[in-house]
């Protein structure tokens, strides 16, 4: 037995997942899911895929019958989402199921337009020829009607619907070329365009703001690191990372918006999630998480999707390689696309996320045709209503699809693989195969300057610089901006040598807590401190004397700064000007491991930077902006707080009613 034990159908979402995967494997361009009461009462999935020939229909309901695999070795070289042949029989066993299907190429079996099969509790009710549009329509009613126990365990319709939405969201992101629709209780929750543009799918799912914030990620262009050195791609190996990731200005309070697909299969991976957080290191505040959709393409033989029946966990042969590839690709995208976060409009956005729509019962109005269609799903045994057929017909692509039905192989009783053909369904040739790469992203243009050209207008509240840019107004937090400048200066200089320090006229006796004293006794930490410019010497009676301070810290309260820097480096204290992490208590916080030196540098930058409330001259403000322009990540301070905000011309015009 080479396949892990099958997962039974435990909730409507699993049905949707299995059936969507079938539809995708069948090369569908259009997948529509309709549910009632969270799919428990009624669930229908219609696609315009390759369909199933009449004779093979009953076979589809036999366990472990699959057309997706021709020999056991293929299990190690999977290119389809499904491969166990369990879905349809499992669903049929616990519901009243009807399937209406017609092969896309009608000449597969002459004279037969299509077939309809009804299964109830695993027993065949009928199988007869029927008129049907090309593709497959599976209707599942009364899920778990014969399993009262499981019925009871299924949660409310809303929470089941939320699960289904999550699943469809994920597939819609993985397959932007397929148009997904979800209709719940007769109302349209989500509809993607199927335009092949990942961004369009993101806009539909996460909203236009997220769409605007998205930066393209593509690991294939040669990687250029922060010093402008072209990285050797040897490490990246055969791993390619593509997709979209949000600029740091657009973040979320949880990790639910980090989405990965490995060879277009949605996976949950702490490792990859961690790689993303690494890439955003110092750009996001603690407790904020990025939004990203990443496709990771690896050689199918180097990834094991068969860890768990739900296939949401994967194991990589070269995990480290994948990790580095993801981190680098995302970081590169962030560096290239750094742009200021846009001012959040105060008035509610037009966009309501599908999830919010469901929770708040706000639904997008259906197009008239769709409303008519979904309001009349048709009785169990009756052929589907004309409206729907028409709609399905309209999905049909004008061009002829290549042959290669999903059950072809079953019919011929597992024949030898087609000569020369990879175990990809033949219809992969028309560009819709699951393993096909994303449509090539347009090569990125010249690298954007990291900051737009800004003209200083003035200072607000002695804290924010008001500047004018090419598109509207930019507000810059003087402290955060200066902190970023110092942080990168320190980083750059520390890479080569120690920071310069200013000697003190008289050694300063330090008042230190017991724990701080303990750290200073650690030779290694003391060296790190000296590298930054703090020269501390032990005196008698466990006293410590400060002999020199970092040049940038002059004019500050040195003793206080040193104490705070020590505490912050040791994690006892968050940066003075930074919010506390909110999630730490929930145990969700994965602390980004930063070296002592890095933390010290961040903290020193914070203490050296101009404070909020400090009056700056125009010249100083101009200087600050010039310096900020030279940084690699001008958009966040060393602790991840944003440095600037953008109020676009358009927003101003809307706000003042000019548009």
């Amino acid at each position, binding site marked *: 037995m080479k396949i892990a034990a099958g997962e039974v159908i435990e909730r409507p979402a699993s049905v949707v997942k299995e059936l969507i995967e079938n539809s995708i494997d069948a090369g569908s361009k259009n997948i529509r899911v309709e549910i009632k009461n969270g799919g428990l009462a009624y669930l229908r999935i219609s696609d315009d895929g390759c369909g199933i020939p009449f004779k093979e229909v009953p076979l589809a309901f036999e366990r472990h019958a699959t057309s997706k695999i021709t020999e056991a070795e293929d299990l190690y070289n999977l290119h389809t989402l499904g491969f166990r042949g369990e879905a349809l029989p499992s669903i049929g066993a616990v519901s009243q199921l009807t399937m209406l299907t017609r092969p896309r190429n009608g000449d597969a079996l002459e004279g037969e337009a299509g077939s309809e099969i009804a299964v109830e509790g695993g027993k065949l009710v009928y199988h007869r020829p029927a008129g049907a549009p090309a593709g497959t329509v599976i209707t599942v009613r009364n899920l778990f009607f014969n399993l009262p126990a499981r019925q009871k365990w299924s949660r409310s319709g809303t929470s089941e619907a939320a699960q289904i939405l999550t699943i469809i969201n994920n597939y819609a992101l993985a397959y932007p070329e397929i148009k997904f629709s979800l209709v719940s209780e007769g109302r349209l929750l989500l509809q993607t365009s199927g335009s092949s543009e990942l961004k369009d799918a993101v806009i539909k799912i996460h909203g236009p703001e997220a769409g605007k914030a998205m930066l393209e990620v593509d690991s294939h262009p040669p990687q250029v690191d922060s010093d402008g050195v072209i990285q050797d791609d040897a490490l990246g190996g055969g791993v390619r990372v593509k997709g979209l990731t949000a600029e740091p200005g657009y973040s979320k309070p949880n990790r639910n918006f980090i989405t990965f697909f490995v060879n277009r299969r949605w996976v949950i991976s702490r490792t990859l999630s961690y790689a993303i957080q690494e890439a955003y290191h110092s750009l996001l505040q603690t407790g904020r998480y990025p939004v990203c959709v990443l496709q990771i393409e690896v050689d199918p033989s180097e990834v094991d999707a068969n860890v768990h029946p739900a296939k949401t966990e994967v194991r990589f042969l070269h995990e480290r390689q994948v990790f580095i590839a993801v981190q680098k690709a995302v970081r590169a995208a962030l560096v290239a696309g750094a742009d200021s976060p846009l001012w959040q409009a105060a008035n509610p956005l037009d966009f309501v996320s599908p999830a919010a729509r469901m929770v708040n019962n706000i639904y997008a109005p259906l197009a008239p045709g769709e409303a008519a269609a979904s309001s009349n799903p048709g009785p169990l045994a009756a052929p589907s209503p004309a409206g729907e057929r028409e709609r399905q017909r309209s999905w049909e692509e004008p061009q002829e699809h290549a042959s290669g039905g999903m059950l072809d192989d079953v019919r011929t009783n597992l024949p030898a693989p087609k000569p020369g053909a990879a175990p990809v369904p033949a219809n992969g040739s028309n560009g819709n195969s699951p393993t096909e790469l994303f449509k090539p992203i347009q090569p990125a243009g010249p690298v954007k300057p990291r900051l737009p050209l800004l003209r200083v207008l003035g200072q607000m509240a002695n804290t924010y610089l008001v500047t004018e840019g090419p598109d509207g107004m930019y507000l810059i937090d003087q402290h955060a901006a200066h902190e970023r400048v110092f942080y990168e200066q320190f980083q750059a200089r520390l890479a080569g040598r120690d920071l*310069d320090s200013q000697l003190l*006229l008289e050694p300063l006796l330090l008042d230190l807590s017991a724990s701080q004293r303990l750290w200073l006794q650690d030779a290694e930490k003391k060296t790190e401190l000296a590298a930054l410019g703090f020269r501390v010497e032990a005196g008698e009676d466990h006293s410590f004397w400060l002999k020199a301070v970092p040049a940038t810290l002059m004019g500050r309260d040195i003793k206080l700064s040193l104490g705070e820097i020590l505490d912050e480096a040791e994690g006892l204290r968050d940066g003075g000007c930074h919010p506390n992490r909110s999630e730490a208590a929930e145990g969700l916080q994965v602390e980004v491991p930063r070296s002592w030196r890095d933390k010290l540098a961040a903290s020193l930058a914070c203490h050296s930077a101009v404070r909020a409330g400090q009056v700056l001259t125009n010249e100083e403000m101009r200087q600050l902006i010039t310096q900020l322009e030279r940084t690699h990540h001008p958009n966040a301070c060393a602790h991840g707080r944003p440095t600037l905000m953008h109020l676009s011309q358009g927003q101003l015009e809307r706000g003042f009613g000019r548009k």
Partner: protein
Amino acid sequence: MKVSCQQEQLAKGLSIVGRAVSTKTTLPVLNNILLATDKEEGGRLKLAATNLEISITVWVPAQVQEEGEITVPARLLSEFVSSLSSQGKESTVQLTLDQPTLTLHVKGGRYEANVKGIASEDFPSIQSVSNSTNNISIEAGVLKEAINQVAFAASTDETRPVLTGIFANFSDSKVILAAADSFRLAVRTASLASEVSQAFTAILPARAMTELARIIPDDESMVEISVNANKSQALFKTDTVHFTSSLIEGNFPNYQQIIPKAYQTRAVLETSSLNQAVRTAGIFAKDSGGNIVKLSIIPGEDVTPGSLLLTANAAEVGDNRNEIDASVDGQNAQIAFNAKYMIDVLNVITTGQVALELQSPSNPGVVRPVGKDDYVHVIMPMHLAPR
């Protein structure tokens, strides 16, 4: 209250007391100037303002027709009175108080204004420094220069209050003023016009002293200094101005031990060319993170004169080398300073030549005027990490 006085004198008086007007709004009356009539010396108008740290009182000659007192918003009155200069050079200003409405009517030529005031009872009484133990006289010009030579070195960090002050040590017929932050020290000795009966010390707030230096004249007129018995306040008196400042309590560190007694290398330079060279290097130093200027002193040989080489280096931006002539006593020396500290001291050296005395790259450097031994400035060098 009904008085008239010369516009020019009134405007000048208002601008002087204006320096003590508080900018904080917690106590509105502190934004006001007190005006009070004074029958002495043939009639004067007293103007006073305080921010509770310093207070300034100025007397302006005036014709008092009716006595009274009032406080009025400082900026409003002084700006209006300044504008009255348009009414002719010798014009007079009449101030008439309408007591019931607390409104001051100000009239100059054909301009007039009403300014609403606050009753003078609300104005904090300015403590007069009475029964002072000692009365010291010093030339205004000397005091002014001495303050300017040390005040900038005082710390702005309020956590060590004594370092925000100027330490003053009065003894015999001289006063030693010293100020230091954690990185530099300035010491100036000035002679007094009179002998001090009993030596004493005080710590004067540097900020207040800077204000004082601004308002006292740069001439040979006398400033009388007195400190009250419990050493909480000092009074500086000129003919027309009384300037009171609170004193800082505490012990000033022993600065004498910081001044190096010897040197390895001494370079004598033209003050102005050194100043210019440091400023030029400072342009580049500003971007270097620590504002660092490196100095190399090269002794002359036989016929070639010695020189001082200044270099500054801004990472990724550029660097700068400036060389100036120097007469060098001793060996080669290298040291790095914060450019700002160099510029600060060179700005207050009044002699044409300046001496730079060094021991080692990590020992303090000393700057002295050449030809005058009344001033010493000590700067701690920067420690440059090995490259």
